[in-house]
């Protein structure tokens, strides 16, 4: 192969990557500007009264002795009509004291909690939820992970959108409760703020595809049955549900003010494991759904475009890494003369001028909207967080391809918890009910 042909191939790859990067850049900016200046669409938040549907709250728990009691105690204080509410901790094959703690709370609150202790079956949250769903007949299912601390009014907020017969799933906002623990948690707090306060909210405002995130959210049981229930073959059953619902004519709603505390990883190794698992699960869903989504003419073109970009999001870090390698190769093979071509130059200018800052602009906007004026100073350090994520996601994508070739099954692993079992949640609902 001649050097000229080699350069040509590299340039073509480079151009494609730049087009993709510029597309995502434009998307980030569109979302941010919408959040700052566009019309906000949160029509279900003000629903105070109605004939509330029956609801089951699943608390997914696998070895959650550190956190499960806080979550269940918080759920016992929610203001949802008691006769329409079933609280069901889904204890999935725990080997620690989770079962004992749940049974203790059940004994102290007879009739308020219906525990489901799963001792066998396929591991993983999706499989546990599938088994639990078979046990309930309520109209709505709300899911929390065991480290979440739902506030008193949260459940009504999460159920309210289901008065709209088009809504199949709801997602609330996740807020790190241990934001101040160390640098990692502070960086994750900023990332989460950008993702929810700007990204998800703008997608809701623009009528695009907000994503159900598997916790602080829920699904309509009828819609779930219509799409075939939880998919136990995937590590990202939440994203999978979002896209299967969309293809069956159901919408997912995001409510930015339906906030719930969660724990974020405090150690880099745990964070890397977590984001690697998300990446593998998300890419699985992407492979299963992207073609069906793009060819589904019943979905509007802007939802299809946004959905496709959302599905491809965990492919972008390895693509960006590839872009850097190609750029270095082009530099040494003296192909930079082609950079003077207006298209490539324009793309480069767009990316250098906008692309590298777009995600940071989102985070900065989210921090501003949240009213946090000082933590925004940490923003430059997020660069390091992104580099770690990029490497972890790229490695996860590479190993996923290898696993697919070798036909190895993807394995679920649990995120570590840090809270001490007796910890009192910040701003507990108990305090409010006393007022």
């Amino acid at each position, binding site marked *: 192969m001649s050097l000229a042909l080699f350069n040509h191939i590299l340039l073509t790859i480079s151009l494609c990557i730049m087009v993709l990067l510029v597309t995502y850049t434009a998307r980030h900016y569109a979302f941010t500007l919408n959040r700052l200046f566009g019309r906000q669409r949160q029509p279900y938040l003000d629903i105070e*009264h109605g*004939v509330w549907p029956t609801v089951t709250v699943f608390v997914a728990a696998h070895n959650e002795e550190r956190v499960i009691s806080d979550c269940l105690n918080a759920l016992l204080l929610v203001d949802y009509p008691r006769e329409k509410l079933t609280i069901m901790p889904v204890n999935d094959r725990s080997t620690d004291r989770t079962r004992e703690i749940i049974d203790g709370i059940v004994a102290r609150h007879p009739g308020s909690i219906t525990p489901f202790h799963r001792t066998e079956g396929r591991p993983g949250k999706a499989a546990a939820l599938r088994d639990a769903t078979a046990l309930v007949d309520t109209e709505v299912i709300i899911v929390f992970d065991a480290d979440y601390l739902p506030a008193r009014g949260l459940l009504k907020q999460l159920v309210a959108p289901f008065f709209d*017969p088009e809504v199949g799933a709801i997602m609330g906002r996740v807020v790190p409760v241990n934001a101040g623990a160390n640098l990692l948690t502070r960086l994750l707090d900023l990332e989460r703020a950008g993702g929810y306060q700007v990204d998800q909210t703008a997608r809701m405002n623009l009528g695009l595809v907000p994503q159900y995130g598997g916790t602080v959210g829920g699904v309509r049981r*009828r819609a779930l049955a219509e799409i075939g229930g939880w998919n136990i073959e995937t590590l990202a059953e939440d994203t999978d549900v979002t896209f299967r619902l969309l293809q069956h004519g159901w919408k997912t709603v995001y409510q930015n003010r*339906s*906030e*719930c505390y969660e724990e974020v990883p405090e150690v880099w190794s745990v964070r890397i494991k977590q984001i690697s698992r998300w990446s593998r699960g998300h890419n699985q869903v992407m492979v299963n759904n992207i073609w069906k989504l793009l060819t589904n003419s019943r979905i509007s073109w802007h939802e299809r475009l946004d959905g496709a970009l959302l599905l491809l999001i965990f492919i972008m870090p390895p693509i960006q890494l590839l872009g850097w390698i190609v750029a270095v190769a082009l530099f040494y093979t003296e192909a930079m003369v082609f950079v003077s071509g207006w298209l490539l130059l324009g793309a480069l200018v767009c990316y250098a001028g906008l692309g590298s800052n777009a995600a940071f602009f989102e985070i900065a906007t989210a921090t501003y909207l949240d009213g946090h004026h000082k933590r925004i100073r940490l*923003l*430059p350090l997020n660069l390091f967080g992104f580099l770690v994520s990029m490497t972890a996601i790229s490695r996860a994508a590479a190993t996923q391809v290898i696993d697919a070739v070798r036909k190895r099954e993807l394995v679920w692993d649990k995120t570590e918890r840090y809270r001490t079992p007796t910890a009192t949640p910040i701003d507990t609902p108990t305090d409010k009910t006393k007022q």
Partner: protein
Amino acid sequence: MTVKHLLLLCLVLVVLLLPFIPALSEWLWPTDFAPLPMRSDQPNSLAFFAHSFRRALIERHGLNLDAMQQAGENYEIAASKDLSAGRDIRKTQEERPRDLFRALGRTNHIVVFPSRAWLPQKSRIRSDLYAAQDIESGDGVRLRSCLAEGDVLLGENTTVQRWVHGRHVRLLAHVHVEGRATAQETVSFTPPARFERAGAPTVEFGNVSRTSTPVNMPSPVASRQVLEGKAEIGPDHQLASDYVVRGDCQVATHLILDGSIKSHGTMHIGAGTRIIGGLSARKNMGIGANSSILGPLIGFEDIVLGPNCRIGRPDAPTTLVCNRLFVSPGCIMHGVITTYDGGYVMLEEEDHAES
């Protein structure tokens, strides 16, 4: 390497590293690291301000409101720079007692009436009012917020800047509530009037002697129909089902539907229709005369309620949310109304849904 090159290098390094100085400072000496405060701990209640105000009187100002209701004018109120005692001026010799009106005119101030309160016409009240019994006002009064344990009657052309709450709240013609009108039992508007939010077990608009009867309680709906484009739902459709219409939606007159409807376009509900479910429209929604709907009503744009409509049931209050609301006389709403750009109680039906 020349001095120029070195200077350029230093300059580049400074520009690159400058943003890291505040970043490192915030990392090493944290000043802003608390988790985002949780807003959903606050109950979603339209009467939240009234309840908070009552709580503040008890906790911050040490008033025993139960004892005040028992003792009436004999209750001793300790005045302070934040709080003054009021009295029913209809029982006094002076028409406008100077000390009372000075207190009523103060901002960031509370005036507590241990029994009834009377606000003469065209008064300008800047303080927050509490009355252990009823509050009545003459015409053209402008007040900030008021809470009465008894009834509230506001005269014509009165403006409420923030909120009003009582057992029964009656608002005469041309009243403008810039915030919330809430009541333990009834809020009653006399047309024409304007408001932003209203909530009570029963909110009445004008003469409600001919309002339609409430719908039945719902039974679980097991199916959903998705209709593409513009659609009319009539008696030949399945009448126990939810509907999603991906276009404009028209519902035939006098139809009884056991289910909810969502429309991507405008929604027109025919006269005399009874819908045992909620309605949601991305564009304007018009409800025909004498209709009865269980609710909630979720309008992404405007909603027009024709004459004599009933939304919700006395035992099943509901919610109406929209951008602007136009209500015809004779309507009853059980529950809460939230508008973003105002609610208008009309003298007679006007077709605002088309605008």
